[in-house]
């Protein structure tokens, strides 16, 4: 069993593109769920909007990348308004049902045969549409050490991705310390009390949903640029559930919660997957019990169990403050 490779892959994925994508998705959820208490289960839909905005604008229409980014943000804002207007006046679980349904609508429309010309059906859109951006890469080579390994292009994505994360973390930190952020937190704690103070709760919730959604769209943007392809089934509900696992693992309502959560999540996920894979290949685990193609299923089962266990036994996550996150016993 090649433990060094297992470690190398796990560490690489810990700070790799996937970790960035789920960190961004969770950063958005943190504003919605962590600070405002909004149950947005459609983060995959926001990410899909960001990703498809890039792919359709650049690959299909041939317009520049910066315009695509603008469309991505605009699309996320419109989507947030569409979701928020019917549901934000209702109880929390209505938003959950509607957002999860809306994200599925986006995915099914994107993969439909009748819109094949625009969205590429279930194969999605691929091409060298981020080539201009990759051409800006000043790095001479990638990185290849015993601990981490990135190709030249991946390293460029990773550096820019974490810079974007840093900027969003900073914005979040400033926002939640502001009066605006305090209103969000009080909405989470007691909506009626905030309303009685004369605040427009509906408006604040809408702002939180929109801001979180735009951050979620950035997750899709990074995904689309890094992979240079967009596939509808990458934006299934699994993305949202993973993002929730990341958020709750790191600690909701903590500025650095999603960052830490994403790193730990991906390290553990890749480590377990690679270790199991190696164990099966080396014959430590008989292939009659576990086939190599089932390792992913074990990983997913562990994510589900982990999410349950965290929510029951440690809802504040690793670094969260139990008092801050008034989700459990009160």
């Amino acid at each position: 069993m090649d433990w060094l490779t297992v470690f190398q892959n796990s560490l690489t994925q810990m700070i790799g593109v996937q970790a960035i994508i789920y960190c961004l998705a969770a950063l958005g959820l943190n504003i919605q769920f962590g600070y405002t208490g909004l149950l947005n289960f459609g983060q995959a839909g926001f990410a899909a909007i960001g990703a498809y905005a890039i792919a359709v604008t650049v690959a299909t229409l041939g317009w520049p990348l910066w315009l695509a980014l603008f469309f991505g943000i605009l699309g996320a804002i419109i989507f947030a308004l569409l979701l928020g207007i019917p549901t934000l006046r209702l109880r929390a679980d209505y938003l959950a049902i509607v957002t999860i349904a809306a994200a599925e609508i986006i995915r099914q429309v994107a993969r439909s045969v009748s819109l094949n010309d625009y969205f590429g059906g279930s194969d999605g859109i691929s091409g060298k549409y981020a080539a201009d951006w990759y051409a800006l890469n000043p790095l001479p080579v990638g990185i290849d050490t015993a601990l981490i390994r990135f190709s030249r292009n991946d390293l460029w994505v990773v550096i820019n991705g974490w810079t974007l994360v840093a900027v969003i973390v900073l914005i979040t930190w400033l926002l939640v310390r502001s009066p605006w952020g305090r209103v969000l937190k009080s909405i989470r704690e007691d909506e009626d009390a905030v309303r009685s103070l004369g605040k427009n709760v509906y408006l604040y919730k809408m702002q939180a949903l929109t801001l979180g959604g735009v951050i979620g769209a950035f997750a899709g943007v990074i995904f689309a640029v890094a992979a240079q392809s967009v596939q509808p089934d990458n934006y299934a509900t699994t993305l949202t559930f993973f993002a929730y696992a990341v958020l709750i693992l790191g600690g909701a309502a903590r500025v650095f919660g999603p960052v830490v959560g994403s790193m730990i999540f991906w390290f553990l996920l890749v480590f377990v997957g690679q270790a199991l894979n190696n164990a099966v290949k080396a014959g430590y685990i008989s292939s009659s019990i576990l086939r190599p193609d089932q390792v992913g299923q074990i990983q997913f089962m562990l994510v589900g169990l982990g999410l349950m266990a965290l929510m029951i036994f440690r809802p504040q996550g690793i670094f969260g403050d139990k008092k801050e996150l008034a989700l459990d016993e009160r």
Partner: protein
Amino acid sequence: MPRGFQLMTGSTSEGGRMSNPMATGKVARRQGYRRGIAFALALFAGLLMAIAPAIAADAGLKGTVKDPTSGTGIAGVVITAEGDGFSESATTGADGKWAIALPGEGTYTVSLDTTSLPSGLGLADPERGTTSIDAYSGQIKTILFPLGDGSAPAPDSEAASKWSQIPQLTIDGIIFGIVIALAAVGLSLVFGTTKLTNFAHGELIALGALLTFFFSSIVGLPLVIAIIIAVLASAFIGGWVQNRVLWKQLRMRGTGLIAALVVSIGLGFFLRYFFLFVFGGQTRQFDQFAGQAGIEIGPVLITPKDLIASFVGIILIGLTTYWLLRTKAGKATRAVADNPALASASGIEVEKVISTVWVLGAGLAAFSGVMIGLQSGVSWYMGFQVLLLVFAGTVLGGLGTAFGAIIGSLIVGVLIQLSTLIIPTELKYVGALVVLILILLIRPEGILGRRERIG
């Protein structure tokens, strides 16, 4: 947070929490909890793991080449599997069956030699004469090459047939509505009594179908008996045990509503991939009644199995309605849904009612899964696939009201089928979900819901 934001606690646990917060009580409860979990997991795993060895076998490919009109096998068709230095051909036997043993894991290209087909026959889709598959050891994959007359199927004359489709689509819609309603009743009742939005409810649907598949196709029981056993087993495992080891404990811990919702998402996620793990990724049909021919009743075509299953579904829904309206236990259930504190004060055992609701809901969901299985086969993902439609039906009728859920589900079912007249069939579920969002915009409390429910 207002008190109503917590999962409802029954009278017993409420009292227990106030009068007995001491460590001893907690420890005893924890131990009971752990034993309960171990018991349930062992039972559950044991039952489902039993499927795995029956499916596993040597690596290989198999299939049957059939005449599209008569349905009989065609002999003498050559099929070739190639990959990584390996190449082997097989010729179909008199029954049209072929099989190729593979040397091991890897990606193989399987192709059908169209020149070996009898004259007048060709592939239904000429592009599907060659497929690429990933083979794993311990797996025999079935590969089908659908045949036709060699040319692409002629498109229907659309406009003329559209209106004549309405009766058929309505019947299909009502059957689908019954499927959704069976699942929605449980979802709605659980929500009504405990305020839990259960995102793992879809897995109860899948559980019923998977257990039916296990008892009928692997144990070999007649399908009807398999269905009865599977529904009862799901009601016990998915209802009583699930409530007992998980949700009752969470209620006693005072877990918040949102936390419980996230727990149900984690549970559903875990169960889905557990089902995938033991059952595999394919969609399978029950052995019996798989390709039943439809009978024509007036303008509509319906298979006898669907007709009987829908009839049983209607009876089950009718019995549930009767139970809710006329029996003491049903009235108690409605009382708990209405006002648990008052119900508890009036001497109703809230926990007992909740337990009954779980058992009933899980059993009905299981039968809903059986109906889906009869129509379109059993897969690990089937529960989550319909869950959002179940939610749509429930919300349309009004969350928490059983009757609303039934009516809402029937509307959603008919609407989905009729919408195919206007929008492409592949987008029919999208239409239903859009309606769900619109309903929330116009009448968020649903058809039969009451305004105060949605706070």
